[in-house]
């Protein structure tokens, strides 16, 4: 992941936020860089029987047990065989580590806060729930993921 974009934004002086970008099923998402603890390659994940479908299982991150969330399932995208080859973005929620399984992790972008727009009302409710805003980049759209919303609903309600 490169830090050049990040550095460029710093010099411009306008209030900006840094996002770790990632793609899930072809769509680009961003998570504020301060929320991200780690980025990992494909990991050995222990499946947990009876767990909600979005939970891919648990993995061992340097002695800590991290719950892996299958982001494709969370977003209702096809997810067969996905967990085995996915990249993992480790975030912390309620003092508990979670690893979000995504297709790819891209560079860190520094985006001016002023350009952040609200999520279109027509978006699938499932997607809208987990998005905090949207950026129009030159060649694509970037949805800002709300880590709290992604993880909050898991385990408390059955989504399927």
């Amino acid at each position, binding site marked *: 992941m490169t830090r050049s974009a990040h550095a460029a934004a710093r010099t411009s002086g306008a209030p900006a936020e840094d996002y770790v970008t990632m793609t899930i099923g072809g769509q680009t998402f961003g998570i504020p860089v301060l929320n991200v603890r780690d980025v990992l390659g494909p990991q*050995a994940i*222990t499946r947990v*029987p*009876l767990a*909600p479908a979005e939970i891919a299982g*648990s993995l061992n991150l340097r*002695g800590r047990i991290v*719950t892996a969330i299958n982001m494709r399932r969370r977003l209702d995208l096809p997810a067969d065989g996905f967990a085995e080859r996915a990249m993992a973005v480790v975030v912390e929620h309620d003092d508990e580590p979670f690893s979000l399984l995504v297709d790819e992790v891209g560079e860190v972008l520094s985006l001016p806060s002023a350009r952040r727009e609200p999520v279109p009302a027509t978006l699938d409710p499932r997607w809208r729930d987990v998005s905090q805003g949207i950026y129009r980049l030159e060649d694509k759209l970037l949805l800002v993921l709300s880590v709290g919303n992604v993880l909050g609903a898991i*385990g408390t309600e059955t989504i399927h």
Partner: protein
Amino acid sequence: MSRGMQMDDLLTDFLTETCEALDVLDSELVELEQRPGDPALLGSIFRVMHTIKGTCGFLGLPRLEAVAHAAEDVLGRVRAGELGVSRDVISQVLAALDRIKELVAALGACGSEPEGRDDDVIAVLRRTAEGTAAPEAKKDPAAPPGHGTLYERAGSASGIDTACELACHGFLSKSPEAAALAPDMLKLQFALAKGFEVSLQQVPGIDIADVMTCLTDNGWNDGDVSLLAGELAEAFRSLGVAEGDIASLTGLLRRSEKSEESAASGTDDAHGGIAPEAARPATPAPATEKPDAAQPAQTLRVNIDVLEDLMTLVSELVLTRNQLLQIMRGQGDNPFATPLQRLNQVTTELQESVMMTRMQPIGNAWGKLPRLVRDLSQELGKKIELVMTGADTELDRQILDSIRDPLTHMVRNSADHGIEAAADRLARGKPEHGTVELSARHEGGHIVVVVSDDGRGLPTAKIREKVVANGLATEAQLDGMSEQQIQQFIFRPGFSTAAAVTSVSGRGVGMDVVRNNIEKIGGIIEFQSTEGAGSRFIIKIPLTLAIVSALIVECSGERFALPQNSVVELVRISRNSPKGLENINGRPVYRLRDRLLPLVSLREILGLPEEDDRTRAQSGADGTYVVVSQVGAFVFGIIVDKVFDTEEIVVKPVSRSMRHISCFSGTTILGDGRVIMILDPNGLASAVSAAPHAEAVAQAGRGERGAHGGEAVSLLVFEAKSGGPKAVPLSLVARLEEADLATAERAGSRTVLQYRGGLMPLIDLDGNAPELTGKHPILVFVDGSRMLGLVVDRVIDIVETALDLQLAGGSRPGILGSAIVSGAATDIIDTVHYLRLCDADWFEVDTDKPYGAESERNVLLVEDSAFFRNLLIPMLTIAGYSVTVAEHGEAAMTMCKEGAQFDIIVSDIEMPGLSGFDLVRKLRADSRMKEVPIVALSSHANPQDIERGMEAGFTDYVTKLDPKALLGALSRTSVAAPAKEIAA
């Protein structure tokens, strides 16, 4: 460091120490009520209250000080012998203590005393104190000079304490350095008081002269020292100590001829109070010492968080160590091997040491109970004594926290519901005082805590009523349970036996909560009660939770950890095993040593995919394993694919997002770094007990087990038609079903039920086709593809009992005879009769060579039990054998000696006189009998028995209650060459 900061620290110290002191006071006051004449106890109570008062004065806590002062006054009166220890006095002091606790709690929460007045409490205490003597008498405790020792004339401990306190106050108000000295002044006060006591009482310790010397050593100037001495003299004077005595007391302040070396070893602490403590040899942690501690404990206060962190770090270390060892195992010679061994050892020791830091005496969870019981006895108007033993039994802090509330609840229950009113007790011829006993002890990796009372006990009849009324079970289900099982219903949610909801119990917190709390920490709880004699709760809890030993099992290719403490044994069931898994009402069970074990399939519970044949072949598994587990009194089996070894695992909590899954109690990282889930036996057990019948059957079987020696048989007792209970050997019954006969069909003269893809003929006890109405239990007899259902009215119980067949069946068809089962005359039914009624050639199918097909064969049956003779003779006859009976070994010997010829001999092993073993040896000694096949018949058929039988000369060895096995054995032996490898 600013003074404000120091005051905050001081406040924190005060809170910690006061909280402890208050708990001690609670118990001690209750003790005092029982032993009013104990001066040591009274002294200790007085000093604690006095210390609280003094400390509050220093810290500027007027409300606390006032309440403590009033209470101290009353205690002082008691100590002076001017006031007797009455229940009222103790209650008043306890009320003051409660107020102090409230204030301290508020102080802890917001850092300052809450607004408010304590006139109510203080007024009551004042009245008590003043009601007996003039206040002046208390202010002037000193007797005229010449009476008593100098110590007594100085006012004893309380007088000296007060004097030192006054002196320190006075000193602070006059010293120019007051602000800097204030924080240490409390310690100085204690040191002074202690010093006086040492000097005057000549007890070991640091005398008052040493204390003063230390002050100088710690940088006090002479002016301050003499100011303090002056204040001390002034203080004694104000307390009415005679001038001559004051001179003697101040004289003690100066070192006379005694050496000064102890003082020379003083610390670098800035000011007084601490130094004398440090100067005392072998006192490593002086800062926390209390003045009344005779021998300071060698302890250090450590923040809980630090310990928790330490524990977590050690856990990580253990995991890393396991990982390293795992890697090492795969390697041959390696230079790391030796240091790794050392690391291994050190880690284990470190782990143990850190665990030790978390251990606390269980008494810490009991501290409040004496007070609780006392208050209860007053409120309820009962006389109750609480006896506690084993309070110093240590266990993990975390566990201690989780049993505190359950224990309190149980003690409260015992006092409220258990112990009767004094009058009732006397009427029953019991001592007027009820006793609640609380005990704790170590028992092999567990702590066993018992809460018992000698009260009225819990009448089982009442429990039954409640159970039925609350719909927890039906009368019929209860009929099938033992008293002990019924008693366990008190742990079910929504159960309370208190007829009235009192202010004490019945607050909606039931025993189910208690059980949940205990089981959450891997403990088990049992309840026993004898009506009129009392009840007992027995709790068994693990010592620690953090690191446990676990059995690693595999199911559908995924591994899980199962805490070792709930594993009873492992059973491997090979695919070809004759004794496989069976079903009762569609639920799997396994016969483990003649006891029915309800089973759960881990695969089904966890919804894991079925392993296909290919992967199974690859993994090399040729059967399954049953992990026999125990939760509370409930034993059940968990079916898994594979079992690996046990590992020490560090339990980590399950992620919040998965905490709702009741099957898992935690998660952990194995030595190879993989994450696995820890199974919760409680969660799995609840999956089994969803089938209450299976549980009841299993428990009933166990309940009666071991009650009788000798020829014990498991009998299924049931009711059918009229004429009392009937029974059939359980081993003859393949399954127990319940079916609605409306779904059965008539086929010719017979009634059949579609069952498991086949047609099962149904028959009732009279041998007729049953009516097609109503739901009935059905005893299913199975032989290969053949089935028979015997329709009965009600299944009562399964009992294991020694059978003594009392009456022959006589003319009644289908009845072998009667026996006493569970105290009632019970007809033992002749299974063979029904099988034959239903299918005349039941025993003559299913093999290429029918049993006994080549003409009649002569069988000698040597059997002393009438029951088995009656069971076996008709069966063998039906199968086409000609049966001769010998009732004992001697009779059989005589028959053979007289030249009787038998094709096969079937002999019981356990017989009076000549045993089966002896018989076969004698027979084999006879040349004519060398070749005759002899089949052993025994209720014990473990491998050793079989081996022993073979050695003695038996050809085959079968279990008594397996008629098919016997017929099979007979068929085998008569078909095969009879002379096969008989032991030479």
